[in-house]
């Protein structure tokens, strides 16, 4: 499946629609997911935790861009990339508007980024 980069970002960024759901329920929300190969773990917006009524299930040590270690709560979510894949993953939350798709998700996909054409392709779920 082929997707266009989102040109509302500068520089344009590879974003894809994802559906985030709460375990053991029908509650789900569609949001934009930004491909972030630098992130070890997927990050969801804090607002999603509230809207889906997610409970924290564990904690994890996270090293941010300044090298500082912080302990963050983690949540189990269902993540669906429409027409590509569906999986249960452990995520952390921060104040941001879109999902950061980390390598915990990306390493399950075959992804081809064509920055010159501002498009990307998911070749194999």
């Amino acid at each position, binding site marked *: 499946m082929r997707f266009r980069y989102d040109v509302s970002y500068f520089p344009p960024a590879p974003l894809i629609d994802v559906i985030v759901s709460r375990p053991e329920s029908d509650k789900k929300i569609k949001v934009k997911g930004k491909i972030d190969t630098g992130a*070890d773990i997927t990050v969801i917006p804090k607002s999603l935790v509230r809207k889906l009524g997610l409970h924290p299930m564990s904690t994890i040590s996270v090293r941010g*861009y300044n090298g500082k270690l912080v302990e963050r709560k983690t949540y189990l979510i269902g993540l669906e990339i429409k027409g590509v894949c569906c999986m249960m993953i452990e995520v952390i939350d921060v104040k941001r508007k879109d999902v950061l798709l980390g390598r915990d998700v990306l390493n399950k996909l075959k992804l081809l980024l064509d920055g010159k054409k501002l498009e990307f392709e998911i070749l194999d779920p």
Partner: protein
Amino acid sequence: MSKDSKISLASLDRIIREMGVKRVSSSAVEVLREILEDIAAEIARRAREIADHAGRKTVIADDIKLAYLYAFDRRISRSSDSLSVARASAPSNRFEKEKRAFEEMKDKLLRDPNFQGKYVAVVGGKVVDVGEDKIELAKRVYKKYGYIPMFIGFLGKRKRVVEVPSPEIECVG
């Protein structure tokens, strides 16, 4: 006993007196009955949910015990016009409680070879399941007990550190 009441006033009166109370008004006994029936109904409702999630039609003793642990995590508060049962703690507080319970048990569990190098799920202050895969463990617990607050902790020496080079990680506490 009034038409809708399930607990007799006489038995509650006896319980109060067994606590060394010499005089008790009839309205006090009636209020106690109202509160206890409310709590019993809440425990029963939660127990039914737990049994449903486990795919059982029969509510078993463990369902009642687990439901009680959560229902008891409530307090009675008096509003201006009526008695109401209010949540004493939000799910995030219950998560902190489970986390504290894990920290208290951790040293003891680490000495048990059955737990070393594994994840344990704590619900109601007790270890309810154990496994090597954190996500599979979480899925099992939610499947068995429903979507309830829990804490999953690791019993090992290594500490997993993930890198997320995003400025928001530092901005949010």
